[in-house]
């Protein structure tokens, strides 16, 4: 793996530690308001400053990592499971199942640009952490399914699969034991890049007021709150902005690095 990917990996490990041990690491409670110190800039005692209610921004960013990682991991796990199941089925059985899935269902889900479908669903279901996870999973599984379908198509006619079939292996066994292990590497790359996408999407939805609700902190929501105080308290947008950027970049670094490492022919950045 290249150097950027290693840096990314270190950042990701730190992020998970911060997310898991947030209650131990945060210097203050995320709801503790100190109104006399509203919008206070960064200082030694409060390196990220305070927000419009005088809450410690560092503590809120630490707890924000929890929300980001939780959404990211849950969405990636759900998407990989659904995507693998549907993608493998379409690729393995082919025929009308494949045509239905790949020509119709894929295209329908891909007909909504970016997070538009997630925005639409949350607009009607109402904003909450669970609805964010639900919406992002519904828009996210397609790219996993497409990937797995492609992998299955590539592998299924190869000799070892034909041999397994000749030896009397059932469909389920062939897919599980012979085909999917070959698809696991690109799946890991996809999942890493998917983490970046999910973290970004959660922050975007929360920025629009469609994500997690008070008092739970989210980096996107903090950024939105900071916009009103951009002249007096620029730290309110700088630190959440950096948190999102560093997190997304770390996952992108690792995803890119893994892709290059696993597939040396595909030389990208």
């Amino acid at each position: 793996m290249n150097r950027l990917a290693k840096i990314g990996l270190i950042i990701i490990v730190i992020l998970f530690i911060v997310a898991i041990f947030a209650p131990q690491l945060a210097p203050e409670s995320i709801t503790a308001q100190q109104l006399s110190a509203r919008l206070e800039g960064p200082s030694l005692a409060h390196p990220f400053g305070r927000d419009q209610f005088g809450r410690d921004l560092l503590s809120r960013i630490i707890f924000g990592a929890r929300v980001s990682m939780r959404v990211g991991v849950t969405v990636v796990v759900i998407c990989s499971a659904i995507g693998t199941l549907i993608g493998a089925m379409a690729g393995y059985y082919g025929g009308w199942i494949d045509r239905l899935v790949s020509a119709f269902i894929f295209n329908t889900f891909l007909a909504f640009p970016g997070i538009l479908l997630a925005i639409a669903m949350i607009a009607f279901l109402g904003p909450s952490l669970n609805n964010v996870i639900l919406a992002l999973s519904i828009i996210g599984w397609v790219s996993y399914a497409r990937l797995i379908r492609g992998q299955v198509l590539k592998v299924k006619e190869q000799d070892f699969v034909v041999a397994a079939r000749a030896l009397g292996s059932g469909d389920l066994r062939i897919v599980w034991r012979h085909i999917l292990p070959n698809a696991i590497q690109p799946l890991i790359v996809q999942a890493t890049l998917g983490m970046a996408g999910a973290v970004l999407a959660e922050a975007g939805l929360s920025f629009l007021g469609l994500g997690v609700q008070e008092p739970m902190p989210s980096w996107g929501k903090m950024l939105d709150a900071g916009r009103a105080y951009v002249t007096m308290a620029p730290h309110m947008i700088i630190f959440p902005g950096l948190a999102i950027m560093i997190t997304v970049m770390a996952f992108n670094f690792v995803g890119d690095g893994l892709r290059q490492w696993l597939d040396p022919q595909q030389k990208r950045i």
Partner: protein
Amino acid sequence: MMGRILVRRLVLVLPVIWAVVTLVFLLIHMVPGDPVLTYLGERATPEQVAEMRHRFGLDRPVWEQYIHYWQQLLKGDLGITFFDRRPVTEKILGRYPATIELALAALVVAVSLSIPLGVTAATHQGKLADSIASVVALVGISLPNFALGPLMILLFAVKLRWLPASGMGGLSHLVLPAITLGAALAAILTRMVRSSVIEELRQEYVKTARAKGLSERIVIYKHVLKNGLIPVVTIVGLQFGVLLGGAIITERIFNWPGIGTLTIEAIYARDYPLVQGCILVIALTYVLVNTATDVVYRMLDPRIQVE
């Protein structure tokens, strides 16, 4: 030949349009409880609720509503809003030009940044310029528009006072939103242009062109780029819709009076018919732009028809 491509694409796209419309129609039925009650709030009288449900046809069976939805849609009618009961189509048409303007400006920003950056990176492969372009591109992909936008307002509007922070007006109002919306696309395109140009540079015709004594500039910009841009055109087309989606956030940051701001206002007001209309128009634009891109792509590169 052209006719066949068009017909084939249309046959593929019609079921997708049907599914998109159906999904958007079903959205209002996903509201937990009753959409009218959610809109009017707890204090509404049963008469008010009943009147409004009847006015919006929500008291009829779902399949009847569905058929009605299609009938109206085919006439270009997206229904009326909850709030002032004005036609949804009228509201959207009033705002859509601003969004198209912003998306096109973002596209211009992205293309004019990515071609020189990508070409420089490709011709200096593995050298410092390449690394710098690559890192800039990665930062661009990772920095979301809702972080970039406020940061640029902080720098260019608040600190330097060069550009206005929000609203719509002359060209100066367009600069920050267009950069905010176009940055991520610029980053993606830079990577595309780079790998595409590297690929083309390996081709035989490049050797021939160089052997003829053509300057490197002409080889790159007249020969390599012409072929290398074909896959880039597809990405631009596909990403134009993504720009429309991203415009929702960018418009909110800069109070840009487009369809994105309209969507968010409608969501906050729980004006469900208006939200449905906005989502449908954005999605259908995306589908149509993608289809058009695909057709253009096939015209540009005849090899694709061999399949």
